[in-house]
């Protein structure tokens, strides 16, 4: 009993802080999402109307929200596997005994993660420039016509995915690297003795041993990618023709640009519900895979 009380004493300050700065705001936002809190309500609370689920219903009837959701899903569905593949590839490369200058490469791959997004976005905007950008220059050398990356609704999202994957893969790479290093060497030796080649060693030793790491990385990337905001904010401002508006960008505009805080809170909860659902699916899928 006494030790239980001590435990509570240790946990209480943290719980208090979490409830004041996390649960309370979330609860407030939930209540706000049921009202039409806006600039008029900020002037005088008597201008606040309780609207029930109207914000949610209207949100689901807003074409731009669906487009933002579609854009975000596109970003997640293409971006997450690409990002995982890139980071796993880089991790394998760095883990390999054959690679030289490991420290240098590790730094180079990790550098984009820690650099300011705005700074690298400016550089990428130059790289992606239609007429003077290096990427189009390279493509034209290969005989491929120039692509208007950031101004063509077809290409703006791929350009942003490319940028985001480049920016983020180093983070997952470090996690994978740690996962790879924790695989006992004897497993490879045993597999080698049984006559397994490089591919078979990867398929039957590395891949299953990385399972938990892979699950964690995929959940982390997925939740991260669902919250796409800064890249379109800096690179395209949601354009052209709103092809890069993400759910979070939509929420930002509703909440902080137009001060429709009620509607913006509703967006936040819808996004939360979607991410929660997808994470549950991932966990179930992983469990099913293990059996």
């Amino acid at each position, binding site marked *: 009993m006494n030790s239980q009380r001590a435990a509570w004493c240790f946990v209480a300050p943290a719980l208090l802080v979490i409830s004041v700065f996390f649960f309370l705001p979330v609860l407030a936002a939930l209540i706000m999402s049921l009202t039409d809190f806006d600039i008029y309500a900020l002037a005088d609370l008597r201008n606040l109307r309780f609207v029930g689920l109207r914000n949610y219903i209207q949100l689901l009837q807003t074409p731009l929200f669906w487009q933002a959701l579609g854009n975000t899903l596109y970003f997640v569905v293409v971006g997450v596997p690409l990002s995982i593949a890139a980071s796993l590839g880089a991790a394998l490369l760095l883990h390999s005994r054959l690679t030289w200058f490991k420290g240098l490469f590790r730094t180079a791959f990790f550098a984009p993660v820690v650099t300011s997004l705005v700074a690298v976005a400016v550089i990428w905007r130059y790289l992606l420039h239609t007429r003077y950008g290096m990427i189009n220059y390279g493509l034209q050398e290969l005989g491929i016509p120039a692509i208007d990356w950031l101004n063509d609704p077809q290409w703006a999202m791929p350009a942003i995915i490319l940028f985001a994957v480049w920016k983020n893969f180093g983070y997952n790479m470090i996690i994978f690297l740690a996962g790879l290093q924790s695989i006992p060497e004897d497993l490879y030796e045993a597999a080698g003795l049984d006559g397994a080649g490089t591919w078979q060693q990867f398929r039957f030793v590395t891949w299953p041993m990385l399972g938990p790491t892979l699950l964690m990385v995929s959940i982390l990337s997925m939740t991260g990618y669902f919250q796409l905001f800064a890249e379109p904010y800096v690179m395209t401002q949601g354009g*052209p023709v709103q092809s890069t508006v993400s759910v979070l960008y939509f929420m930002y505009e509703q909440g902080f640009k137009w001060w429709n805080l009620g509607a913006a809170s509703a967006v936040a909860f819808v996004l939360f519900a979607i991410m929660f659902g997808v994470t549950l699916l991932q966990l179930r899928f992983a469990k099913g895979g293990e059996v």
Partner: protein
Amino acid sequence: MTRLVSIALLLSLVALLSSCSQRQEQGVVLKFWAMGREGEVVTALIPEFERTHPGVRVEVQQLPWTAAHEKLLTAFAGEVMPDVFQLGNTWIPELEVLNALAPLDGYVAASAVVRQDDYFPGIWDTNVVNGRLWGLPWYVDTRVMFYRQDMLKRAGFNTPPQTWAGWMKAMTAIKRMVGPDNYAILLPSDEFEPLLALALQQDEPLLRNGDRYGNFRSAGFQRSLQLYADMYAQKLAPLNRITNVYHEFGMGYVSFYISGPWNMGEFKRRLPAEQQDKWMTAILPGPAGPAASVAGGSSLVLAASSRHKTEAWQLIEYLSRTDSMARFNELTGDLPPRRSNWTLPKLAQDVYARAFAQQFERVRPTPKVPEWEQIATEMRLVAERVTHGELTVAQAAELLDAKADHILEKRRWMLARKEAR
């Protein structure tokens, strides 16, 4: 025992904090928020004010333009508004709704410095909401035509076009001359001002029924959007974005560009010397002769929450003096809103500024509702879809009206409730 220690610690902390806040300030401290470049430059004008107003100290805080709107609303919500601040004149209706501003009518009536008839009327009007004056124009901003004189001449035109028809004719001639890889006019797709300027040239207002509903289905707006769409459809305007306008303008990639006063300085600075006599500014062409453009710029406003309103007004009055404005113009290049400043040699002799002087006499305010900026953004987005061929002009007008009506729903409810009372 530990409790005693923590209480003692807490008490000493409280004592420390209160001793900080209790430090007595000498006289009155005015908090003044200004944005961007203006915020940097205005500090040069403050010492003179402090010298002539002993006992008053001005604390200038600079806000970046991109964060200014958020910061002002947050300051209002947190009740930490400054005494005096710079406010984009299209934001005045919004802060007026919040009751964040103090009306200036009384101060102006009693002032020997501020004379309404000396200000460009369209700019003054942007500060009047619901019949009262909420701000004093500090500098003005509008959009005029920047154009390449030499290109126009080569295409066979000696004077800039003054009507829409003449404008299209000149652009078509230039396009024919420069070929498929170059264009006649630059209309940046991330700006709503060029289309808005054309729309303001019409007789119909942009909102109707006391600004309760959108009025974009009016024939006037559709004519403006049609002209805008035609420029794209006839390949007179490029669809792709441009990173360096000055370079492209110098190269002849485009020959017309609708833009604002800050670009006078930029063109002078960034175009090579041999091209300096090739560019010029002109008043915007209209449906039938020179016509209106947007009334932009910033005003100085007095916070309703200010406890030093007299001193705060004195600061606004000081900054509105003709000599302060002339000095401010020298420092920033921002254009003064008072006609008497335009007879001073620096502006009167500037050939590039001449078009602005004409244009300021014909500027029009946008609808004075807090929701206007959101509606203007929708207008830009819908226009972008028209230029990409996704919507016809009539479809766009209908869609835009629906969007505006939706955005204005709360306003209609507020007005109906006010009338019922």
